């Protein structure tokens, strides 16, 4: 309408856009080219959007322009203001709205096509209903993931009796509603499907622990991709099919890879909360310390240990991210180095259960990259280490993963911090980690516990090291 451009030209532009997206993903998967990959993908996206404006089928622009204006303001504000530690939940939110958009497209198309009985091709109907179902699940599931990570909802798994039965029945009901909507082309069934899928998304994510959220977000990311691709089938739009499918496929593989890095299957992440007994999640310190004793240490004593050590390894975890203690940790490490202490950081591949998360946080605090060590590189160092300082990490240090075949963690590669001469654990309380598993490390004779929020504990250590 703005310019007379044929559908062929637009489709050629979509092809170029698709190539940009592919090159973008390719470059995103290597550290040296990742940032440019993101830019290339964004350029591809811009091409697709610009040429869509030239589509001859468009007969009004004000809804598009108004919607894009509102969305741009919200998107920029959200992306700029979010703290680095809160990025996982922001990704969840962006993913959720994408799924919501796919579901809304399906709903609008259904409303437009369904009254003309007999005009809805079966493949369109199938794609519409699939898009509505998966898009809605992704939308509500992502919002729950956001709420859990933002601590608006408790991070621990929320389970109730017969939950699996309810979920199974609900899913069967959704399929039935989908069949009814397809057969009768009645709007009421489409509404039932959309609302039911929203409820299902909530129930799907509620029983999953906060620490597993990144894996869940990755899965929902793949869902949104498939919903977008499905919308592409309805609209016969190749840009949507290429973009959506690429994300659907790569997102699925990424989800599996993340699960593998934690030595867990996807089924275990999604349904793990049901099999295991729950008391670990609800029991307080008393429940987890039965019969075993641990040693508590003051910040002053721990500071002396650190200040007079010659080798210190810092093991950051989720607790550091939550408390946003990365700058304080940097300060502590600098102080120790001034005293001639050799300081290394040991980064477990899934520290915080968020692959790469610790690298991002420590980089934000300007920790020199050569001080960061991967698990394989740092593990031989522990027997020569004077103090291992564990800041809010738990499951990735649990020696049960190495020693106890009965433990659910058994077989997961861990940081062998227990081999250090001394271990100082900064932790809020004796409650078990997100996996809900007691950590034998805390009861070892060479381990000392320093209780408190990671940030305030590190601040106290800094003050005490200065005084030492």
């Amino acid at each position: 309408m703005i310019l007379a451009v044929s559908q062929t030209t637009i489709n050629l532009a979509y092809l170029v856009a698709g190539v940009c997206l592919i090159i973008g993903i390719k470059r995103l998967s290597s550290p040296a080219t990742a940032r440019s990959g993101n830019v290339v993908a964004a350029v591809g996206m811009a091409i697709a959007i610009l040429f869509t404006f030239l589509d001859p089928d468009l007969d009004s622009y004000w809804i598009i322009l108004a919607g894009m204006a509102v969305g741009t303001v919200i998107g920029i504000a959200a992306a700029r203001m979010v703290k680095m530690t809160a990025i996982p939940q922001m990704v969840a939110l962006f993913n959720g709205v994408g799924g919501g958009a796919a579901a809304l497209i399906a709903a609008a198309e259904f409303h437009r096509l369904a009254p003309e009985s007999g005009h809805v091709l079966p493949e369109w109907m199938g794609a519409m209903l699939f898009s509505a179902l998966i898009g809605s699940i992704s939308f509500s599931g992502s919002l729950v993931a956001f709420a859990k990570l933002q601590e608006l909802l408790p991070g621990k798994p929320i389970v109730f009796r017969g939950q699996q039965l309810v979920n199974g029945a609900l899913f069967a009901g959704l399929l039935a509603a989908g069949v009814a909507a397809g057969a009768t082309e009645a709007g009421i069934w489409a509404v039932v499907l959309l609302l039911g899928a929203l409820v299902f998304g909530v129930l799907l994510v509620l029983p999953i622990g906060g620490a597993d959220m990144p894996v869940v977000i990755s899965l929902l990311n793949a869902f949104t991709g498939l919903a977008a691709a499905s919308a592409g089938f309805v609209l016969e739009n190749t840009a949507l099919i290429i973009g959506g499918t690429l994300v659907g496929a790569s997102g699925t593989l990424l989800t599996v890879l993340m699960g593998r890095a934690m030595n867990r299957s996807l089924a275990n992440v999604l349904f793990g909360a049901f099999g295991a007994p729950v008391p670990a999640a609800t029991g307080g310190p008393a429940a987890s310390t039965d019969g075993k004793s641990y040693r508590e240490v003051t910040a002053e004593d721990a500071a002396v240990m650190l200040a007079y050590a010659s080798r210190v390894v810092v093991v950051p975890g989720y607790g550091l991210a939550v408390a946003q203690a990365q700058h304080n940790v940097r300060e502590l490490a600098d102080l120790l180095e001034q005293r001639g202490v050799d300081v290394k950081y040991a980064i477990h591949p899934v520290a915080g259960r968020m692959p790469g998360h610790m690298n991002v946080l420590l980089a934000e605090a300007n920790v020199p990259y050569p001080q960061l060590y991967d698990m394989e590189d740092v593990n031989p160092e522990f027997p020569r280490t004077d103090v291992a300082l564990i800041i809010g990490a738990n499951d990735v240090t649990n020696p049960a993963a190495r020693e106890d075949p009965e433990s659910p963690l058994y077989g997961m590669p861990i940081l062998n911090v227990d081999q250090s001469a001394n271990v100082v654990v900064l932790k809020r309380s004796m409650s078990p980690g997100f996996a809900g598993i007691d950590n034998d490390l805390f009861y070892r004779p060479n381990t000392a516990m320093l209780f408190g929020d990671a940030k305030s504990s590190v601040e106290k250590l800094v003050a005490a090291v200065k005084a030492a």
Partner: protein
Amino acid sequence: MSQALLASITVFVLSVFLGFELISRVPTLLHTPLMSGTNAIHGIVLVGAMLIAGSADSDLEKALAFVAVVFGTINVVGGFLVTDRMLEMFKRKPTERDE
């Protein structure tokens, strides 16, 4: 089966293989940025929302399409910006090491 559907299915199947192939060797370090980057890419759903919004007839469709465009735009704009912020963190490292 219509030619249009067959073409769509062809693109779909090839994209599935390509998607798997593209990220099969990703260092764990990049899992999070990659997730965020692909998250932005499914914002392509915005294109669909634009097409719906530009040809909506009834008020209900217009309302649905408007929200869809807002959502899609947030997905695209927010997704790419957050990914860029994340990757900016990696840039400052003085040396690159192989994973």
